[in-house]
């Protein structure tokens, strides 16, 4: 039995029955990481030595029957834009290559309280800006299913780590699809919770009205367990909300909508086939499935690429060489800032800062940013209308399977298009999940996305679990364990 392939609840049962020790699982996880790291480069830092003691403490809690948390002794990898006190948080940027976190993010504090074991920090597109993990200042991550291909991004390191079983689960962040798209490309579950249900305190901000932390896991239940552990309002994040969940039906009385605009041109036949496969199964199980039109989705990329860069240009103004991170000297403070930002930021980050600066600049604000905000409100209204008719919305997670490394790096717009299906949930603040459903002709996994109304995360997870059970994906990349 491959213990690193087991879901969290099963591992916890083995720990409780004393058939497996957390320290044994921990060392197996690091054997796997040793096997794959040179080929995949999923991690920027691995924490093996310093956490052996913690794994032994977990052993003792299970020995004495005092372990209380389902996550006690579970090895979890953390995206390197989330602060863990005493460790580097680089955001895969030269700007922060020497930054050591002086505090824990709220999600880290909560996982520590759950006695989780951290395995390391995972690679990402610089400051979470990208869809392939090729924008890392420390080298790209590769897809564990086929190393010629990208793992997706920006949480590509987290997805590759779980995919290669170098961690049991991972945390990522999702601003326009950065959890769901890599999960789809790596044959995993990726869950972006309702905006505000998980505190962003300690997540290095990219676009604050869109950023959300969430899990990348092998099963829907694993995502549920982690979401339950990390959610809750937080006085340190003014946008966080009390996680008052609403119940919507997940059984056969649930009504399902397929988003018309995400089943048209620009979406590959393979991606459409995965959606059709799922809806056929649901229909044969007695679910009502119908097509739903959300016309403004056709403008999602335009809205997103004004709002996200605008917020990014404001958030990344803090990297000025004064308080933390890189400093490149200059004769005056201004010269120092200009030189620091020239040297510290990579190409994609500069591109987005400049785009956002322009969209917010005097004379253009109403034309660009103001218009995008109005369109965003329109998108929320159109989703609200859709959820008057159906309970869940299904679409592909990604327009295509994973693409090859280098394939989309020359044209930024082409790269942006790979987030077409995932961006709407961020703009509307909705919970959304990618579930692995099939394998393409090139032997790469593909997923299907399900969305539901705000604060129905647990119902969404319940419904997704029904799809998961029907589909029986049960596949993993070969050669790493």
């Amino acid at each position: 039995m491959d213990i690193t392939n087991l879901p969290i609840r099963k591992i916890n049962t083995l720990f409780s029955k004393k058939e497996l020790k957390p320290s044994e699982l921990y060392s197996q996880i690091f054997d796997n990481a040793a096997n794959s790291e040179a080929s995949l480069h999923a991690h920027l830092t691995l924490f093996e030595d310093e956490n052996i003691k913690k794994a032994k403490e977990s052993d003792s809690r299970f020995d004495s029957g005092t372990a209380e948390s389902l996550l006690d002794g579970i090895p979890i990898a953390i995206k390197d834009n989330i602060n863990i006190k005493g460790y580097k948080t680089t955001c895969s940027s030269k700007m922060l290559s020497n930054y050591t976190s002086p505090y824990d993010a709220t999600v880290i504090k909560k996982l520590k309280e759950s006695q989780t074991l951290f395995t390391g920090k995972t690679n990402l597109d610089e400051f979470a800006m990208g869809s392939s993990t090729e924008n890392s200042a420390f080298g790209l991550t590769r897809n564990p299913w086929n190393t010629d291909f990208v793992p997706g991004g920006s949480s590509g390191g987290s997805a590759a780590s779980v995919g290669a079983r170098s961690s049991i689960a991972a945390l990522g962040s999702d601003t326009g699809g950065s959890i769901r798209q890599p999960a789809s490309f790596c044959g995993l579950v990726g869950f972006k919770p309702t905006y505000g249900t998980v505190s962003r305190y300690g997540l290095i901000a990219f676009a604050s009205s869109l950023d959300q932390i969430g899990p990348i896991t092998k099963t829907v239940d694993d995502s549920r367990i982690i979401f339950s552990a990390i959610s809750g309002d937080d006085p340190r994040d003014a946008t966080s909300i009390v996680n008052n969940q609403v119940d919507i039906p997940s059984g056969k009385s649930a009504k399902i909508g397929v988003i018309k605009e995400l089943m048209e041109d620009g979406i590959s036949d393979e991606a459409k086939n995965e959606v059709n496969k799922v809806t056929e199964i649901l229909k044969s199980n007695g679910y009502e499935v119908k097509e739903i039109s959300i016309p403004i989705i056709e403008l999602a990329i335009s809205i997103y690429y004004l709002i996200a860069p605008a917020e990014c240009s404001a958030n990344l103004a803090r990297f000025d060489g004064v308080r933390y991170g890189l400093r490149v000297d200059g004769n005056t403070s201004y010269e120092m800032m200009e030189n620091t930002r020239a040297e510290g930021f990579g190409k994609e980050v500069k591109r987005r800062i400049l785009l956002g600066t322009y969209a917010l600049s005097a004379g253009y604000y109403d034309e660009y940013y103001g218009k995008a905000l109005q369109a965003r409100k329109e998108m929320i209204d159109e989703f609200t209308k859709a959820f008057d008719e159906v309970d869940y919305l299904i679409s592909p997670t990604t327009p295509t399977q994973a693409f090859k490394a280098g394939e989309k790096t020359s044209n930024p717009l082409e790269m942006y298009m790979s987030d077409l299906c995932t961006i709407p949930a961020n703009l509307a603040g909705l919970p959304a999940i990618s579930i692995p459903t099939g394998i393409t002709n090139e032997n790469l996994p593909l997923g299907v996305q399900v969305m539901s109304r705000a604060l129905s995360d647990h119902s969404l997870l319940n419904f997704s679990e029904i799809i998961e059970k029907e589909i029986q994906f049960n596949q993993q990349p070969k050669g790493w364990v």
Partner: protein
Amino acid sequence: MSKDFDIKNIAKLASINLSEDEQKELDNDLSIILEHVKALSDLKLDTEQKEIFIHPLEKELELQEDKLVESLTHEEALSNAPKSKDGKFVVPPSME
């Protein structure tokens, strides 16, 4: 929507020193992206009825209680500073 922008001016506003090659490349990239987002200008909205978006779930900001909470110590706050002295950040002069 207008396409007129001056990449040098935007870089100045963003405090990023760009090389000639970068200016050329980013000028081209921004033109492509702005051309794409032009689609938004064709969107007809009843703007009088559409209030500006602030929080996806329309959460209103609340005042916090006026009480002391744990935060970084002075030393921790300075621990990542490129240059500090006597408990303060050190920067080059603002004017030459």
